[in-house]
């Protein structure tokens, strides 16, 4: 547990000094928001509202891929990955720390993206903000869990930029399906029910447990 907190602190400190992951994700996300304007130039406010959950989740998914792909690249320099592998005890906590750091970074970028989206297209997300944050947060737990697990594998493979999305996207389809449905309901003004977030809770739980348990052999030579 302390190991996870140490990693979270270290990753956030390193990111604060280099800012390479967050900047890449923010620039990408805002560019796609702009692209959206030109992909559907003539649309009514109702159409914008209807498209909002889908567009937001496409941006979230690919921005997350961008960020998660770099989870372990910093560890390759000076072979810091070996330092992680040398930590005694359960390596699941290393997984947890890495996933938590990604969650913080990706969550921050998503919040900013939603704000920019709302501002550009006059979509009022304010009433749904709490419920939306819960939905996105749960989905992020799932995304960062499998993402951290697969990223640790792909970073030590050839063609890692290609391999990560191929590994990750099939496992993110159920997350995306559940998250889009829940987000659409929330943005459409419905009250968030337990039934709507239940799939996300189940997936996030399963992925987090799988990542925690399966991470140990990933760090071996």
């Amino acid at each position: 547990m302390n190991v996870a907190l140490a990693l979270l602190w270290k990753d956030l400190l390193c990111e604060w000094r280099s800012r390479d992951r967050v900047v890449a994700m923010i620039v990408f996300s805002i560019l796609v928001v702009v692209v959206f304007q030109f992909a559907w130039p003539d649309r009514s406010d109702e159409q914008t509202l209807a498209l909002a959950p889908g567009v937001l989740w496409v941006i979230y998914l690919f921005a997350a891929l961008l960020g998660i792909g770099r989870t372990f690249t910093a560890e390759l320099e000076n072979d810091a990955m070996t330092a992680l592998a040398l930590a005694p005890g359960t390596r699941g906590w290393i997984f947890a720390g890495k996933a938590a750091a990604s969650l913080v970074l990706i969550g921050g970028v998503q919040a900013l993206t939603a704000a920019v989206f709302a501002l550009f297209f006059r979509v009022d997300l304010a009433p749904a903000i709490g419920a939306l944050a819960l939905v996105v947060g749960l989905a992020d737990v799932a995304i960062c869990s499998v993402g951290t697990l697969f990223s640790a594998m792909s970073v030590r493979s050839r063609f890692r930029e290609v391999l990560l999305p191929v590994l990750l996207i099939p496992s993110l389809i159920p997350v995306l399906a559940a998250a889009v449905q829940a987000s659409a309901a929330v943005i459409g003004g419905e009250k968030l029910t337990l039934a709507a977030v239940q799939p996300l809770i189940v997936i996030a739980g399963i992925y987090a447990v799988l990542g925690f348990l399966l991470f140990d052999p990933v760090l071996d030579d």
Partner: protein
Amino acid sequence: MSRLRLSGSGVEKRFGRITALHGIDFEIAPGESVAILGANGAGKSTWLRLLAGLAKPSAGRFVAEGSEGGGPAAPLSRERLRGRIGYVGHATLLHAELSARENLDFAARLHDRRPTRAEQDALFAELGLAEFAERRVGALSRGTAQRVSIARSLVHDPDLLLLDEPFTGLDEISAERLSHQLARLRRQGRALVVVTHDPQRAVELADRALLLHRGRLQEPGPFEAAALRDRLLQLAREDVAGARA
């Protein structure tokens, strides 16, 4: 004194078609300092990473025994073994973005330790790093970074220090300085396992040598720099002769 005993029988490590270690038998007694000597590509680093608990053998048995909390010696799991050794690799294992002190702090926390500032300073002073503690590691010279790496490996007070070619990339003065510091650590009762291709360093830092040639253990002969150098050359010549035949 170190309370770790490392032993192996028939330890083999394969990477696909390549076999790095061909069934070696060895025993490293508690408190003993050992040099793993051999030419490039002999399998030395692979062996050291097995000893560090970073990999499993493809075949054979590797056992680490140690006592925990004053009890009798018992086999240790890889998880526990990793907590008892310090490892210095080819690379420094450090984060360039962080200062030396932050790196040390992070390494300690990975071992679930929180050394006080005074303890950190003592460790820095011992390795001649006092003036570099707050500097960003990315801005340090290779020799200094190497010493920070050693400080990092000592932060959890390991029984045994494993070093993989620690003199690589250092100029003569830095290498000499490092050798003195390692010798002092050894005098203080820290056991070392040093991987090196240099018989002189082996004699300086160890009680005996294990000679590895093409993934197999060889009889090292007398433990003197000149004799070990001759032995290494002899093995290399046999290879050339074997290749011609």
